[in-house]
Structure formats: C-alpha cells, structure tokens
C-alpha cells in the first residue's frame, strides 16, 4: 500500500487511477473466489428442493388416466429424473450457465423466457427503491448526525423506529389508500413498461418503490447517523477543521465517505428483504413480476420454474453483495491509501 502523507490525503488527493483500478480488480477477483463455493452451495440447496418434493412430476404431467407405471418411468427417463441427484444437479447447472433453465412442466414455456419477461418489473421497482432509500435515508441520517440532539434528530429516531416495524405490504396498502384512493394522484395498480411511456412507467412504479424503500431508508438513516456521529468526532475531522477547511467539504469529502460503509453494508444486507418486499409490492399493486410467477408456479408445483426463479434471485443477492463490497473498498480512505 502506498503511504500518502496526511495533508495530501486530507486534501482529498486521489492516488493514480490505475492503482485504484488494480486494487478493485484484485478485490473483485478475491470476492469471486470466495463467492464461488457459496453459489455452488446455494444453487444445490435450490435444486435439491425440487428433487426433495414428493410430487411426481411425470404423473402430474401425464394426468391421472395416462399415468401407468410404464409411461411414468418412460417420461422420467426422458426428463432425466431417474438419474442420481448430483448428476441431475450438474447437468441443470451447466445448462443454466448457458441460459437454459428448462421448461415449465405445464405450459412448456422455457423458464428463462418467462423470467426474462417479468424481470424488468422487479428490476424497476428494486432499483428505484434503492435510489429512494439512499436519498431519503442518506439525507435523514446525515442531517440527524450533523444536528444531533436537535428536534430533527429526535424526530428521525422516532420515525425510523416506526418505519422499520411496518412491513412493506402494510406500507404499500397505506400508500394506496393515501395516494390512489383518497387524492387519486397515482394509479393503484398495474404496470406499464418504460418503452411504452416513461411518465406512465414512473407513475406505476413510484408507490411500490416507496413502499419497499421505507424500511431500508430507516435502517440506512439509523446506521448512517451512528457512524457519522462517530466519524465526526475523529481526530482527522478535528484536524481538517483546525486547518480551516469549509465545513461542507469536510462533511462530504472526509466524514461521509468514511461513514457510509456500514450504511452500504446495511443496504447489501437488506437486499434480500427488499426482494421479499417486491413480492409484497407485486401482491398489493397487482404487478406482473417474479413474485406472482413464483406464487403461481408454487401452487401448481411447477418445479423447474421454482428452481429457476430461486437461482436467479440468489444470483441477484450475490451480485448485489459483490457490488456493495467492491464499492466499500473503493470508498474507504485512510492515511494509508484507499481500500484498507
């Protein structure tokens, strides 16, 4: 690691871009190496879930009359269901790497296709929710930390405690009642793709995203407040103030940068929670997303769809965590350089 002398680091001097890129690339590689076994374990759990089910897919597909033992055995063989679990898993995984998640037992539609069709809905809600959570939670946490002990700080604490106990589906319903039923500003349900009409798209996803982001915003605000209060009392902040740097610059370039880490970690942690919230938002706002697909296929015991969905969702969580970790490493700065 390079040793930067304090004044330069405090003045926000960046080390050469290439060095930073190399550090991030190393971290990314290391992260991926750690993640690989995790991906393998979680996908195996996902896959064996379907195999564990005592449902007999061949019999279900054939229907009661045609399900003679011979026919069932033949279909099982042609679907590869008579092979050992680990062999089935391996061929499923290699196929999945090629983008082939199998076909639905009932509709014969490729699983990858129905997931790709519904993914944009959840992606829009989740991305907008993350954005809202960062803006709302970040602002509230920062202001609360800067004016700690004041009325805003106390207000934020109370609101955060309340907000983090309200589940997303309850928040969603409250929002529907307020904005769609009472003042009729926004549509209560449905989805319009951004390719059709961007304003319509925004109008349809803003309430679900807001419902999703509220609990996460509260978590971020709380965490950011705590770590920012801590950072603002550190010596290097005092040092920067003594040198007469403007407060705004100290806050944004020195304090927030080092305080944002735990809040970002929270964001990564809360991501699975947000996915659950997305299912809730889909249910409340009748959006045609992955959660609805999961519920439908769970009811009909359409195992390939369920397996494919779980795979896609876990990959999402893993990728988000990887991004959070890489961002964290790029964000942290000490007198020793970045990423330590």
């Amino acid at each position: 690691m390079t040793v930067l002398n304090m004044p330069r680091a405090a003045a926000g001097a960046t080390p050469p871009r290439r060095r930073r890129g190399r550090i991030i690339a190393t971290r990314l590689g290391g992260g991926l190496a750690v993640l690989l076994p995790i991906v393998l374990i979680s996908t195996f759990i996902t896959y064996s879930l379907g195999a564990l089910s005592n449902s007999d897919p061949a019999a279900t597909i054939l229907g009661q009359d045609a399900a003679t033992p011979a026919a069932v055995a033949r279909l099982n063989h042609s679907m590869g269901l008579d092979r050992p679990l680990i062999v089935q898993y391996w061929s499923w995984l290699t196929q999945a790497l090629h983008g082939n998640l199998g076909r639905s037992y009932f509709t014969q539609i490729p699983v990858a296709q129905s997931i790709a069709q519904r993914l944009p809905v959840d992606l829009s809600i989740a991305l907008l929710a993350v954005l809202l959570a960062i803006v709302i939670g970040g602002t509230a946490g920062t202001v609360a930390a800067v004016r700690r002990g004041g009325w805003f700080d106390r207000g934020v604490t109370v609101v955060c405690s309340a907000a983090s106990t309200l589940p997303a589906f309850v928040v969603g319903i409250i929002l529907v009642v307020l904005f769609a039923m009472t003042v009729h500003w926004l549509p209560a349900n449905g989805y319009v793709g951004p390719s059709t009409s961007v304003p319509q798209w925004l109008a349809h996803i803003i309430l679900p995203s807001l419902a999703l982001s509220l609990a996460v915003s509260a978590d971020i605000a709380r965490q950011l407040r705590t770590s920012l209060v801590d950072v603002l009392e550190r010596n290097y902040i005092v040092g920067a103030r003594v040198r007469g740097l403007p407060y705004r610059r100290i806050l944004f370039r020195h304090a927030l940068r080092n305080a944002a880490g735990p809040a970002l970690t929270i964001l990564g942690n809360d991501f699975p929670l947000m996915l659950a919230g997305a299912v809730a938002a889909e249910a409340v706002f009748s959006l045609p997303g992955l959660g609805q697909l999961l519920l439908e296929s769970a009811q009909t015991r359409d195992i390939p769809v369920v397996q494919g969905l779980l795979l896609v969702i876990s990959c999402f969580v893993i990728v988000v965590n990887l991004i959070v970790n890489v961002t964290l490493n790029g964000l942290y700065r000490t007198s020793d350089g970045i990423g330590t």
Partner: protein
Amino acid sequence: MSSGAVQAAAGRPARGRRSLIGPRSVLRLPSARVAIAVLIGIGILTVFGATLAPQNPLTINANALFQGPSSHHLLGTDYLGRDVLSRLMAGTRLSVLTALEAVGIGLVLGTVPGVATVFLGRWFDFTANRVTDALMTLPSIFFAVAVTAALGNGLVQAMVPIGILLAPFFFRVTRAATLEHARAQYVEAAELLGASKLHVVRVHVLRKVLPTIAVTTASMTAAALLSVSFLTFLGIGVQPPAPTWGGVLSSDLDYLAQAPWAPFIPGALIAVTVGALNALADAFRDRSGAGTLLLTAPAAVTPETLERVDDDRRSQPAA
C-alpha cells in the same frame, strides 16, 4: 476485572455482577416495560384468543357488511360481515405459534454450531461460515414459497425454511460473541487450571453469550412474525375461512373501495407486536451491549468486511 477473573477461574463466578445485564435493569427502561406489557397481551391472546373472542370469527352476517367500529363490533366487520376483532383474536395463535416455530428452529440450528465452531477447529469453522453465507443469499420469502411448492401447502411447512434461514443470523452473532469470550484472559486462566472445554463453554462462555442470544431471539421473533403475516397475506398455508393476521389484511385489500380504513387495524396489530419485540431487543442491547453485531453483520463474505465488523464491535461500549 482481575479479581473477577481469578474468582471465575476458581469456578465461583461473582454472582453480584451478573445483575449488570440481568432482566431487572432492562425493566428500568420505560420502553421495555411498554414492550413487555404488549407482549404479555399478545401471549394471552395466543393462549386464550379463540375463547376470549366476543363473537364467532367464522359467523357470516349478510346484514352487516363493511361496518365501521361500533359497540356491537368494536373493530367493525369485514366483507362477509364477520367480526374483525374476533377474527384477529382467534388468528393470533396460529401467527404467533408458527413464528415461534421458526425462531426455535433457527435458535437451535444457529446457536449450537455457533458455540461449537469456536471449539471444533478451523475446518468446521470454515465450512459452517460458507454454508451460512450461502444460506444468507437465499431470500426467505421466496425460499418459503418454494418449499411449499415442494412439500405441500401448509404454514408449518412454510415456517421450516424461514427457521433455517434465520439460523445464519443466530450463528453469526453467537459465533462472534463466543469467540470474544473464549479468547478472554479468564478463559485462558481456567484452561491453565485444567478446566475442560465443556466446562469452559458451560460456565464461562455460555453465560456471557446468553444476553446476545436473547437480543437476537427477540429481533428474530419480530422477523419471523413479519414473515408469517406476509405468508398468510399471500395466502400460503391457510385455508380461507381460518382467520390469520395476514389473511384479514389480504381480504381487506380486496375491498379497499368499500372500507379504506379496514387494513389499518390488522396492520397496526402487526406493527405494534413487531415494534414491541424490536423495542425489547433494543432495550436489552442498550443495557448489555450484547448483540450489537447484528446491526453491522455483512451478508457477504470478504475478510475485509469481517474485520470491519470486528472493529465495529470493539468500538461499541461494553456495558
């Protein structure tokens, strides 16, 4: 500190000191008192809810649809004219018991390996950590719904995966707390005096780790309760006429145009219960400094983030 260490090593822990993190000092906080009062109420509803309910939660009354709160129906009626208060009271048992089922599973699956990993060597620790990381990438609700697809539609089945996915949180917190105490000087002293590993775990570690586990249990119960209400809201695991908190909410959603205020009642019930559990966890955490890891534990995986969590832990006030 040093006298305490000697006493502890001699196998006579200073009893007076344990009250430092005992339940009595937690009760001094007003928020904890309110929370415990709420939880006692919920506990009574869990045991006696169905018998205490003023009316039959399943009785349909076509003459009293979507009524607001009145003396006859304290919380109004739903789309079939059923008494909402009675439905919520009768629905408490299923919601609370299945939440406790999940927490119980998570508690056992998480804390036992969490304590064990410190004493079973690096290989076990590594494996347990990787499995934990993998489990944390599975979103619980998705997983629960998927399990009902595989094992059949039932709330008891659906809560097993929720419990399994709560285990990583118990594991992380317990492991970190155990690690902290197992490396303490007094444990070293006890080992030098010839104490067995089992004795160290039982006498020195477990007792210190218990407050942390208590905090985690409270917040995980809150999480499990949310999951139950959400699953029943989605219609997983219960047949329609049977009342549940989430089920009441879900039927209210379908008739928002007729009764826009209706969802607030089950929503508030869920929020108050979850809030009470979280407040209790917070009170315990404030009093004992336990379970602080929960706030900062990363869902992944790199050594750096783990180091940072350790640092965060160290920077927390001890008591």
